[in-house]
């Protein structure tokens, strides 16, 4: 019974959502939007569970003086800073993300630069990963190396100067070989996802129920 009820709910919900994809008439047409609203409401409540989990984790880190426990103090400083200015901004203006509010100021001057910094690291990681991937250890890696060199040279003016046909070859690798492989994987992913959905709706796949 503990598993049967969720399975029935999954079957009915899954079936209705599929039907609503093909029937625009009310109430079916609006069901997807409605479920997304429900999801947003559930998400808001589970966020409380998430924050509770995060706070308890950091309290434990500080109590037990675990390695790097001072980072937890940084967490609490950031947490209470956001909470305080968030509440103040909501009281003052209906939208705390409005430019000029203390919350927006913190978001723009602290969070966005921090996120940009993390994103910028990607350039270095791309370089180190490419170095390893392009080492000509075997035929596959050598082909990858040749393709990468052609594509990179084909994208810069120096490549054109070297040989005027390089940009066209780079485009061909991109538009024919690369797109063909990507589409093949994409078709597999899409069909795999549909097959998995069918398994979930029919109750064959039950891991999510635990």
């Amino acid at each position, binding site marked *: 019974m503990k598993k049967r009820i969720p399975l029935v709910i999954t079957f009915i919900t899954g079936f209705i959502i599929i039907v609503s994809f093909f029937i625009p008439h*009310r109430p079916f047409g609006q069901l997807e939007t409605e479920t997304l609203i429900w999801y947003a409401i559930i998400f808001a409540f589970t966020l409380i569970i998430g924050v509770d989990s995060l706070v308890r984790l950091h309290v434990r880190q500080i109590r037990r003086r675990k390695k790097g426990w001072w980072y937890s103090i940084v967490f609490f400083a950031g947490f209470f800073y956001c909470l305080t200015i968030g509440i103040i901004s909501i009281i003052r203006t209906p939208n705390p993300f409005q430019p000029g509010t203390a919350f927006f100021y913190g978001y723009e001057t602290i969070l966005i630069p921090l996120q940009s910094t993390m994103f910028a690291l990607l350039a270095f990681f791309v370089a180190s990963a490419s170095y390893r991937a392009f080492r000509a250890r075997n035929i596959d890696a050598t082909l990858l190396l040749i393709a990468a060199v052609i594509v990179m040279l084909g994208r810069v003016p120096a490549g054109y100067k070297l040989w005027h046909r390089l940009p066209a070859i780079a485009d061909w690798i991109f538009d024919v070989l690369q797109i063909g492989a990507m589409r093949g994987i994409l078709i597999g992913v899409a069909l795999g996802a549909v097959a998995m959905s069918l398994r979930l709706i029919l109750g064959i796949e039950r891991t999510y129920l635990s």
Partner: protein
Amino acid sequence: MIFLLILSFSISAKDTPDDAGGSITINAYNIPEGTQRILLYRLAGGDTIYEEVGLISIFKGEYDDASVVDGMEYLYRGKAITEDRAYVAEIKEYISSSPEWFNKSRTSVLLLLILFWVVVLIYIQLAKKNPEGLFIRRLPPLEAMDEAVGRATEMGKPVLYVPGIEYITDAGTLASITILEMVGKKVAEYDTRIINPHFDPIVMTIAQETLKTAFSEAGRPDAFNKDDVFYLTSEQFGFAAGVDGIMHREKPGAIFLQGYFYAESLILAETGYSIGAIQIAGTNATTQLPFFVAACDYVLLGEEMFAASAYISREPRLLGSIKGADLVKSALLILIGAGVIFGTIAFIADNAGNPTYMEIFNKILEFLARAAS
């Protein structure tokens, strides 16, 4: 000349097809040269004055009036304004909107879905009757799970499992939960620790229950630590920074990156590589696959993630569904090949002065593309 132009500018209105009602589509034809804007006016049944409802796009020559009431009748008037004068066009008959019971543009999707499901269901039935007759090719990343968890245990290090940064509505996240259960069982058997940070609190709640069950099924419910499954943040790069921090502090021996990832995929995989962990990745995000292939030891490519539960459990019904999906995939491949050949023949015939094949080919393309529009 001006008289001719006034006659040529015209508008038409129709109930917007395949919608939930509440919308009428107005098209403008022969828009006069030099038109700066086309104002659209509407007269509701029973009213005497036209009200302005919007501007018809000069480029598309189309406007969707989504402010109508189903069943109520309307008349429309368009006014194309140029620098020196205005041209007026009207529709003569009342038009009303109504909701549709079937979205005809999605017929091709429905047909394919029915075909796909029938084939999969047939194979599930066949698999139940003859479970021995099903073969699934070797998936090295799943075979390596034992090795990865075993290595982490030998080194006295924990296992880190990252389920991506999508929500539970994503198929990749669902597949990741399935793989998490398998990894959880192995972790419990080997008596090691699993750290499982999350981007979404709903996924976190499900992961907590999944791991709890996995530990119970492995006969070690006491070893499960709920606090090791925790929420980090719902900010993409904040999450990446948090997971990188965990990698550097905890130095996990094995890292599983399974789920849907975006630009943070390489940041995580490269950090994992830098600490010397064995890494098994898997994602249905095709754009991130090359990064994982470059930086990780093993990678589950797209659909292989969805086959993980069948591969590990060898449950006939699950295997049957994979076999069915493969058959449909083969059929699609043949259809794509046939389409390419037919398209080429149609092109050659069209150039030789016979457009019939090209017309048929274009009609097929239009039928298939309508669903995507």
